[in-house]
């Protein structure tokens, strides 16, 4: 992935002053590069969960806690999932909105529906007006499953233990959040016309605002997740498959999928990491006993036109029944979609301050920038799956305290390589760390999978006294350049970057 250029804000072109290089032409050029590169950027796959189904056996059962930032104009909340439930029980899925996790943690039911096996898409909301949500407010969506026949607390019993995966969850349409129409770009002819320059700057600003609308929820990475949870039962006659991570995507114009996985094989036998796309094995990485390594498979997903589930599994092979095994470690930094071709448009030569040139040359360069802006505009309009939907943020795993503790001590809630200009974050006691990371296993001699993480630079974003929403302008954090890895910790209820 390329490191993005940053949008430099809309330049002004008052009459009677030089066109300017610094702050004038070069801002048009930098902004053109920024929107061009940003519009080529892919997106992360939706992160459903780690393992098979988090938490314990209760009725209702948490199916994940999500969140998004509401703005007037958004109308639709859509959920898509993939389930391998048994037909012998009746399960329903329920969506609840939590706007105040302190005074009303139970939230309000927005919608519920019968859960069906296989792929299922549910329109949770088709209108968000009248719900009392304020512009910019972070809305938590708690999803629950519950059984209606007998309401047994153990309804997710052995016969129903399987895949319950959210593969897409988004609000739309983002395009409704920009009130003004795209102004188009001018054609320069006989001089630096003020109206044309303002139109040009306005077009780039529109593109930046349009691109900037799309939140990039920080990824719930899996850090040093243990595999092997069922080896106790192993009888040595078949491979053991341990689901490690699950998610999904709706690819739009993106045609490649990659993941960044680091592994440490702790078993005394070989293992395979296996990536499945839409249920089919798409890539495999073998791990030999004691091996440490990195795997970043690339899968052509251009054949998958609709919402598609993906999952990672670790398959352990051994022929010795009951042999005590130790779980391997698998860290998943991202699962990402991108374009096979991400070559940015060729920019005209950047003028040096105080360099002389003819108006013909200057005009040609300005018109070249305008043409690129049109290309970007068409690129955004041609991929509504990527640019018109805001994916929900997946809150850290677990929904009761023991489950949260279990997951938080084995997973970093969010690890992310900065691509954006600003981070919108809501939570309580939220810290952001970057630079020199030190991971300390809590039980060095007999690792239980729990660890502590300390970064060289730690920023307190939100104190622990109450829930707040903050915009963090990432450029203001010294050393946190584009592409730099960082993590957020604490009770993070929402965290999403915006490119511009």
């Amino acid at each position: 992935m390329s490191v993005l250029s940053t949008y430099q804000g809309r330049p002004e072109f008052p009459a009677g002053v030089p066109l300017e290089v610094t702050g004038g032409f070069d801002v048009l050029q930098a902004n053109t590069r920024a929107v061009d590169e940003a519009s080529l950027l892919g997106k992360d796959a939706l992160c459903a969960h780690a393992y098979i189904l988090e938490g314990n056996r209760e009725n209702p059962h948490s199916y994940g806690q999500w969140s998004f930032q509401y703005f007037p104009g958004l109308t639709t909340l859509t959920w898509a999932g993939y389930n391998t439930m048994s037909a012998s029980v009746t399960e329903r899925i329920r969506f609840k909105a939590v706007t105040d996790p302190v005074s009303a943690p139970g939230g309000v039911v927005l919608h519920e529906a019968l859960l069906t096996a296989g792929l299922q898409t549910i329109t949770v909301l088709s209108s968000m007006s009248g719900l009392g949500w304020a512009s910019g407010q972070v809305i938590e969506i708690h999803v629950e499953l519950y059984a209606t026949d007998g309401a047994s607390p153990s309804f997710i019993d052995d016969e129903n233990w399987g895949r319950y995966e959210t593969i897409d969850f988004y609000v739309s349409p983002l395009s409704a959040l920009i009130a003004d129409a795209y102004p188009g770009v001018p054609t320069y002819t006989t001089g630096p016309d003020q109206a044309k320059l303002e139109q040009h700057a306005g077009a780039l600003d529109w593109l930046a605002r349009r691109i900037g609308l799309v939140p990039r929820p920080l990824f719930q990475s899996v850090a040093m997740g243990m595999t092997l949870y069922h080896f106790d039962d192993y009888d040595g006659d078949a491979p053991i498959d341990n689901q490690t991570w699950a998610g999904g995507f709706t690819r739009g114009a993106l045609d490649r999928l990659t993941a960044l996985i680091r592994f440490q094989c702790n078993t005394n036998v070989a293992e395979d990491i296996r990536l499945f796309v839409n249920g089919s094995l798409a890539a495999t990485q073998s791990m030999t006993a004691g091996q440490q390594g990195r795997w970043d498979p690339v899968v052509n997903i251009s054949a998958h036109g609709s919402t598609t589930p993906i999952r990672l599994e670790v398959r352990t092979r051994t022929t010795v029944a009951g042999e005590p095994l130790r779980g391997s470690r698998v860290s998943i930094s991202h699962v990402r979609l991108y374009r096979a071709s991400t070559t940015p448009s060729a920019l005209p030569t950047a003028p040096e301050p105080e360099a002389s040139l003819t108006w013909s040359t200057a005009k040609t360069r300005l018109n070249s920038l305008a043409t690129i802006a049109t290309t970007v505009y068409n690129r955004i309009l041609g991929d509504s799956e990527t640019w018109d939907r805001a994916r929900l943020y997946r809150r850290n795993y677990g929904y009761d305290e023991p489950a949260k503790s279990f997951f938080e001590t084995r997973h970093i809630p969010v690890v992310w390589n900065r691509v954006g200009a600003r981070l919108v974050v809501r939570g309580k006691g939220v810290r952001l760390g970057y630079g020199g990371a030190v991971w300390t296993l809590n039980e060095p001699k007999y690792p239980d999978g729990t660890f502590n993480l300390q970064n060289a630079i730690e920023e307190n974003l939100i104190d622990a006294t109450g829930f707040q929403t903050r915009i963090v302008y990432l450029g203001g954090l010294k050393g946190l350049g584009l592409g730099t890895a960082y993590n957020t910790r604490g009770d993070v209820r929402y965290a999403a970057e915006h490119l511009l």
Partner: protein
Amino acid sequence: MPTIAYEITWDLGAGFVAMPGALGAEVELQMTEGQTGLGWGNAAVPRATIRATAATVDAAWSYRPVKIRVSVDGGAYQDLFTGPLLEQDDDGISLRYIAGGMDVIIQRAPVRTPVRRRRPIATLTTALTNEDPDSGSPGWANEVFWRAGGRPWDQRGSYPLSSTVLFYYICDGSSVAPPAYCVDGDNAWESLLLLAEAGAGQIYQGADGVMHFVNPLSFGESAASPPHLTDSLTTVPTGTPYERLSRHATVEGVISTAHAPFKARGVQVMQQVYEDRTAYDVLPSDYRDFELAMQWPIATHGSVTVEASTAQGVPTTVTPSIITTSGMRRVIRVTNPSSTVGLIVHRIAAEGEPVSVITEGTASFTGSSVGPFPAELRLPSNDAVQTYADARRWSRMAVRFFNTARPVYTATDLPYSPLLLPGAYALLTSARRSLSSTPVRITRVQIERSGAKITSLSCVPLTGLPRLSDFFIIGTTYADSDTRKLGY
């Protein structure tokens, strides 16, 4: 020597009329700061001393505008000075008035604006521009002039001088447009000078009392039929001869490197931006105004919450009314609805989207060496310089303007000419100093009380100074083959 005639008038509320008993005036016009008169944020303001007989005493003299006009050799009267009366000395025989520039009027005007986004430091005034900041989008300097009682000179037909229209102004454009800025000051003049500094411009007052915001790139521009200061009428028959020409040069202010700081701003989400838990009482049927001063400029103000109870301790819902709102403060009014029981306000809170500093840094530029030592200029921190691009251009321009030592020439004993005013473009010739029609900018003029001559005039050579005409100017038409610079 030419024959000089003065006309001294004042406006006591019914238009300009001759000041009775006026005997003469002494006028000094100069740049307020800087060796060369080219400094950014500088201002040129006039001061005049008027002598009159005791008959001129008028109880309502303070701040009355006075106008001094001059006729040379029986020609038409031309403006020399316009400004308000500030001091009066009466020794029983004669009167002495001291008049100042419009800066005195402007500095008494508090200006508080909302936060505005990407508004240029100044915009070019024309007969057609909407200068009203409440309905148009004038530049910052334009807005401060307007709110201090100024109106655009090009639109003076629509705005005759009155109790609310106090002066006129003309602005050049500025390339600097801070992303999020507001003016919050009790002294609009100081606000103007800060804006001029950020825009690398100057403020000066013309002889007609019109205030100018000047783009520095116009300093070096030539003017049609400029006055010519000369050592010999033989050399320049149409010039203004001076008796002596002295020259002062200094290493001070000559730089090779400029460092320009900037502070980038970002708008935060709606949040509590003000809280006051002090107890205040409001008497029955009375009200109390509260000024809520914010720590940061507020881009968008939100709700105001007032928690109160009656004097007996019964919680009471109070809805304040908003009196005024600006970027840095809100004034609210809390009215006690009861005619019998006092009200105790115990908490006031306000929400808003604050504009906070998100990053800061410095841009630097180095030009030619000017001596054996590093000669650096650290430009002052200015709230209106908010982007790296602006700081970068600021530092480059500073080096281009101040990299060359510019001596100050002072001519003495010149015949009076109404064209010789601070800020004016002129030519300077001196055989002794090998100057032949050298372009200069006048930075100071001192006029003798008799008015017959200028006792002292300072000017600075403009050779090598960047000019607007070196660049492609927005709004100007060019042929494909025209060659210019895009800018800094």
